[in-house]
């Protein structure tokens, strides 16, 4: 079967990726840093209680990974669907 390369398919793939990234964003911050902070604090990571570490440092590092992962995957997606703006003179 031929791959669907329509704009609708591109948009659906984009939404899927965004939702996946948002789940990760929610889990590391609101999940590990707030809702589950207390039980996680029983686990120690060096001198850190784990829940406290996620709330103060870990979530920020995870946010960074999420954004760069998203940018990388989107660029591949743009390329696959032939809508990338990486060629000179395109994309205003």
């Amino acid at each position, binding site marked *: 079967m031929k791959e669907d390369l329509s*704009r609708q398919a*591109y*948009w659906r793939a*984009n939404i899927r990726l*965004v939702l996946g*990234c*948002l789940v990760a*964003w929610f889990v590391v*911050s*609101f999940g590990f*840093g*707030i*809702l589950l*902070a207390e039980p996680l*604090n029983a686990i120690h*990571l*060096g*001198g*850190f*209680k784990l829940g*406290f*570490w996620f*709330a*103060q*440092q870990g*979530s*920020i*590092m995870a*946010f*960074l990974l*999420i*954004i*760069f992962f*998203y*940018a990388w995957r*989107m*660029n591949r997606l*743009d390329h696959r669907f*032939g*809508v*990338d*703006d*990486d060629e000179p003179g*395109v*994309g*205003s």
Partner: protein
Amino acid sequence: MSLQALTYLAVGLSFVVYITIAFWSRARSTGDFYVAGGHVHPVANGMATAADWMSAASFISMAGLIAFLGYGGSVYLMGWTGGYVLLALLLAPYLRKYGRFTVPEFIGDRYYSNAARLVAVICLIFISFTYVAGQMRGVGIVFSRFLEVPIHVGLMIGMAVVFIYAVLGGMKGITYTQVAQYVVLIFAYTVPAVFISLQLTGNPLPQLGLGGTVAGTDVHLLDRLDAIVTDLGFRAFTEGNKSTIDVFAITMALMVGTAGLPHVIVRFFTVPKVSDARRSAGWALLFIAILYTTAPAVGAMARFNLTNTIQAGEVGAADANLVYAERPQWFRTWEDTGLLRFEDHNGDGRIQYYDDANEDFARQAESFGWKGNELTVDRDIMVLANPEIAQLPDWVIALVAAGGIAAALSTAAGLLLVISAAFSHDLLKSVIAPNISEKQELAAGRVAAAVAIVVAGYLGWNPPGFVAQVVAFAFGLAAASLFPAILMGIFSTRVNKQGAIAGMVTGLVFTFAYILAFKGVFFEPLFENTVDNWLFGISPEGIGVVGMVLNFAVAWAVSLAGEPPPEKVRQLVEDIRVPRAA
């Protein structure tokens, strides 16, 4: 060289750099003035965004908040960084594809309505002025402490510098000035942190030092800190005191608010391509994360040093507390500013610093002959006093002064620019006088920027009593008004003009009313600001989230009841969803 001379030198040199850059990159067209011509490299844009975003609050106040709140300070750390995920995934690439100058312009086009644009302008101006007044207070604090000039003289100098590079250079000048300011501020922030981490834990990386052991022992720093503060009746550093729902709401409001702040959003209009906008959000967060992961270490170590200085030995022992007459030099300098105060309640000439609101501990303290907490520490001094507390060389202290001023000025300049663009582009050019030439519009933008600086200077000079209380306003309103309108504008083709306006107005009015009712900005608060009176147990700081949900709900309901948007708007939305120009 004396500290005074060194500080003048550091601040003076940094000003020369900013002004030189502004002159070299001055704006020649409205495109330069509003979006720096759209030619900023994503890494440079990331750095400029970081400086733009990290204000006097991040530089001066945040570590101080963490020092006293401990785990409770996490709402700021997560809230002010998590917003970049939302920006990168949900807003930045699409707004870049849209490819115009301002946030209200997008809202006006997407909702095919000048009324919607006007509502957006009102939200933007309110958010930005609230925020800029806080920056000006930061400039005042830094100047009065480090340059020992009266606050208003310091303010005038700061205003003059911002005037030169914002009015002359517009977005283009600001962008490259902010890159320089980022370098100054991050260097100023991390150098003392590295020294302090080395002294306390032997680890030069503050991020790791925080989880390390106290130098010369095998006790973890955080465990030791928890022990010394709980011994004095305070809450353990690694535990919070707010309800989970409130922590949740505040964090969410700060995240969504960050993503909705107009001066941050417009920074993504300045990169050449859609893919650059995505990448640039990552760079911005990387540059921000350098400071934001250092801040928890600075906060914890400052608290550790402060407590140990005051309470040198066992709690309750007669000679364990610092003798006031033998207080260190940094204590004396900060006493002069009034931000550190000592009152000898029990007349023993020693300083007792403990939590006298904790009834169990207060009883115990009485048995030591203590008659109440004797030390009042303003949270804002922690970062600025830190190098002195750790006895770092004078040049480090001078550097911190320059960094604090850079943080405040870069944010003020970014805000002033979105305010001036709202006037010249969204009001003058689009509504009042659509026929003016580009040259006239550029001139109007410069005049608007100049006027905004004067107003901001006035707010810094005569800070209205509410400035410190209403940081929640800027974020709550951005979260409740602009963010949902932009998000629905991109991800829905069904939300129409009536829905968007009704949603924005609902979110704005609800959030505004809630904060006013509890904070009482222009009048006495209507309700006491306590958890029993709060809606769902959510404090005014976190209420923007409820405003946001209301905005979404109202906009959706009203839109479904009415006609779908016209075909050309559908086309606009379809078009901004793909990176390549159709």
